[in-house]
């Protein structure tokens, strides 16, 4: 039997369900409690909504919707295709991107007892002790709060701490050289840090999982911006011709002749940096190649008969763009946006490497590599794992771009 793309989706989701059974079930219960407490204490419940909560709800819903959709569209071309390197990576990345809160063991900023968890090698393990908080489970709202605190990955827990080891009778624990009694009513859980921990004792695996979101969303948003600019300017330039075209064309030459990385650094150093500024700058400074392509295409389309007849039919500008030009330029736009995406992810990682990233402590992969550099001797894993993910993702995008351009343009296929 052929292994199809839909199979790997089911497999991954199933695996996730087995490994994270508790988290997934409690997020449904959390959703139920949330709706319940909306009725009892509306204002307080509303003020508790934050991105992390929505994130968990979204993945809970997606967890049901995704398999259903996959099943519903199992005959769809993309899903029927036989499994290959690209689709596996694509599906894994998508899963990580969507289900980050379920996959990650911890919040990316979570650290506790730095002296126990600092700079642990990959596959080391420590014991996490959780003290149970008594009482306070009267109302639905209180239940909701306490379940939320235990289900959602928090950057901080006051009732959890790491120890080196717990005695076999579960009564005492060892931390460094001391042995102490376990607080009553607490349970312990052995935690494996598959990718090790960093200098603050944060789980590298969780950070990479959340970092995928940061790096990929920077790539997506910035390349969308650059696409919009490129298509718009290209269309405008090609449609108008004459002076506007000349000016825009010189302008794009100007951008091309300019060492862009310096412009970006210059802008960041003058106006500071944040996620949005970074995305905006990366988008704005990368529209030129697409502009050139679209412009040339529009010029050639304008000389084609079907376009001329459309103009004679009296279509307005908007219709001309949407009906006649856009469909013709879609292939180059798609290929370009894929490569653009790779460029942006690369640029972001280079900027983060220079310490000029998003300016927040969002764990992008480039930032993780930059931070890991100080521990080159003591913690190779701090660079290795984010580096691997960056490399795999970027190669995946490059191969994807190549495949798309090949499939759109069968002539370019050689050998």
């Amino acid at each position: 039997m052929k292994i199809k793309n839909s199979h790997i989706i089911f497999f991954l989701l199933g695996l996730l369900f087995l490994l994270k059974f508790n988290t997934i079930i409690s997020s449904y219960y959390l959703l139920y409690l949330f709706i319940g407490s909306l009725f009892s204490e509306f204002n307080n419940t509303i003020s508790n909504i934050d991105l992390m909560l929505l994130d968990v709800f979204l993945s809970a819903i997606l967890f049901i919707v995704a398999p259903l959709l996959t099943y519903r569209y199992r005959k769809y071309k993309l899903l029927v295709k036989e499994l290959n390197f690209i689709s596996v990576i694509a599906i894994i990345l998508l899963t990580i991107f969507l289900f980050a809160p379920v996959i990650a063991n911890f919040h990316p900023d979570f650290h506790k007892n730095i002296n126990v968890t600092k700079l642990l090698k990959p596959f080391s393990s420590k014991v996490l002790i959780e003290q149970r908080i008594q009482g306070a489970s009267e109302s639905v709202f209180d239940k909701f709060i306490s379940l939320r605190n235990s289900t959602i990955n928090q950057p901080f827990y006051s009732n959890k701490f790491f120890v080196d080891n717990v005695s076999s009778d579960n009564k005492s624990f060892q931390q460094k050289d001391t042995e102490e009694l376990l607080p009553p009513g607490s349970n312990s859980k052995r935690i494996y840090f598959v990718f090790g921990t960093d200098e603050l004792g944060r789980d590298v695996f969780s950070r990479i999982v959340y970092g995928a979101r940061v790096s990929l969303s920077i790539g997506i948003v910035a390349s969308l911006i650059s696409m919009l600019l490129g298509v718009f300017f290209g269309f405008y330039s090609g449609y108008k011709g004459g002076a506007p075209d000349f000016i825009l064309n010189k302008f794009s030459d100007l951008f091309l002749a300019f060492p862009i990385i310096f412009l970006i650094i210059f802008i960041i150093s003058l106006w500071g940096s944040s996620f949005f500024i970074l995305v905006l700058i990366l988008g704005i400074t990368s529209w030129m190649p697409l502009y050139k392509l679209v412009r040339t295409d529009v010029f050639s389309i304008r000389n084609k008969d079907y376009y001329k007849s459309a103009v004679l039919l009296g279509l307005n500008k908007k219709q001309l763009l949407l009906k006649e030009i856009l469909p013709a330029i879609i292939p180059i736009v798609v290929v370009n946006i894929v490569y653009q995406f790779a460029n942006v992810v690369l640029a972001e990682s280079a900027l983060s490497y220079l310490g000029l990233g998003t300016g927040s402590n969002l764990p992008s992969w480039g930032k993780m590599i930059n931070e890991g550099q100080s521990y080159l001797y003591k913690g190779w894993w701090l660079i290795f794992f984010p580096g691997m993910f960056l490399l795999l993702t970027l190669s995946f995008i490059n191969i994807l771009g190549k495949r798309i351009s090949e499939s759109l343009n069968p002539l370019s296929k050689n050998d």
Partner: protein
Amino acid sequence: MSSLYKLLSFFLLIFLFASCSGNDASKKNTLVIGVDSDVESLNPLFAYSGIEPTIAELLYPSLVKHSWDDNAGEIKSEPWIAEYIEWLNDSSAVKITLKDVKWSDGKKITPEDVKFSLEIYSNADLQSRFYGTFENFKEDKDLRILIEETFTLDNENTFTLHFKDKAKPSYFDFDFPILPAHAFNKNNPKEDPKNIYGGPFVLDKRTKEQSITLKRNKNFSDASVGNIEKIIFKVIPDYNTRILQLKNSEIDICEDVKPDDADELKENSRIKMAQVKGREYDYIGLNNNSPLFKNVNIRKGISYSINKNEILGEFLLNYGELANAPVAPVFKGQFNKSLQPINYNINAAKSIFTSEGWKDNNKNGILEKGGEEFSFTMYIPAGNPRRDFAANVIKNNLKEAGIDLTVQQVEPGTFFDNMFQKKYDCWMAGWVVPIPTQLEPYFHSGEEGIFNLFNYSNKDVDKLLEQAQSEKNKTKKNELYKLIQEKIYNDSPIVFLYWIDNLVFYNSSLKNVNITPLGALHNCWQWSY
């Protein structure tokens, strides 16, 4: 295919050569210092940053030299190229006789050179690094020293400096590298001077972004000169590479080693560690005028919430100590031992916030008061691993206390611009405190407080600061400083975090090395192999 083999054999050859061309060249009596950035200018007028002042002090002699008295915890000054220094008329003037010393071109160092140095350093058009620091001298409105009223030549070796009325001058007022007047272009003093030096070393060679080589000045005679013939400042921007070269004995001394690397380096018998007690501290600046932080209890509550010991223990590995006030513990006479640092105490913090009316009614983990959540943004300069580490710990600590902290990293140039323009309500930065202690610029509420970026204002402290500044009696001055520390401690205008030790590693075959708070390379001309 043959070219592939050629390529391969070429690389093979390179590796063979590379592995045998070790580092066995004659390093006799050469001191190689690993530094993180090249100097921008070797012109002594503009030796502002990094290693530049250190080099200027090796190249140009000064009237006085300093040493550190570890027992008293204070700086000691003595004449260097001055033979005698004599205070006149109740310290309003000083009479100085120069030793018979020569510049590297054989010309004598004369009082005219001192006069020229004073003129050129205080020249407003040049903006030298000492410009604006001659407040005890008679100056015009552009802070140019009125040289005719200040300088009188007594004989060919002796001159007198007259200070302005009510000035309280000290050795530090004429502690600047003396410049050779005949090395400068009179018409355009901005030009780099000719290569004439008077210090223990002269410039040998400079390769941009690679190294600066100094060699011994044959004309300089001082009993305490060591036997080092050459000092090479080797530019190694990457920290890891500096450590690697330190291990391989490619460099002989390296400052600011990270505590994380110290333990491993200590095992290496070829290098020794000098742990210099810090005179640099990190703090969290809080705008004392902002609605949130103008309440002293809130500031203290924030201080209680922060687990400074964890940062000190896990990042600095206890190479440092908690700070309680702005006087460094190395200044033993002035340091107020009786003040206990505000330690991490989450319950104390929580009860302070509760009594100030901050409660978490909606149980989202963040305190509220009057519908406002307790949240603010802390700005930190990007690219400083220690502050990144601390900011992460602090963020979590404050979360525990019920405060939502956002940490925003800002590119350092922008950060310091904004910080000095008082654009931030909360930020984390550090100060390296000067020797001797100066508190007025940092804590005075008036015009003197140019670094009072947190708008601290306490009239008592202002008065005490003025008294301390003008007090000549050492014991009384120290007592005043202790009192000031106590007042500042009680007001907690900022959150004092910790003093950071400077970890210096050096070649263990170096002798006579005495690394003090004055700087790792201070007096390195006295070292020997």
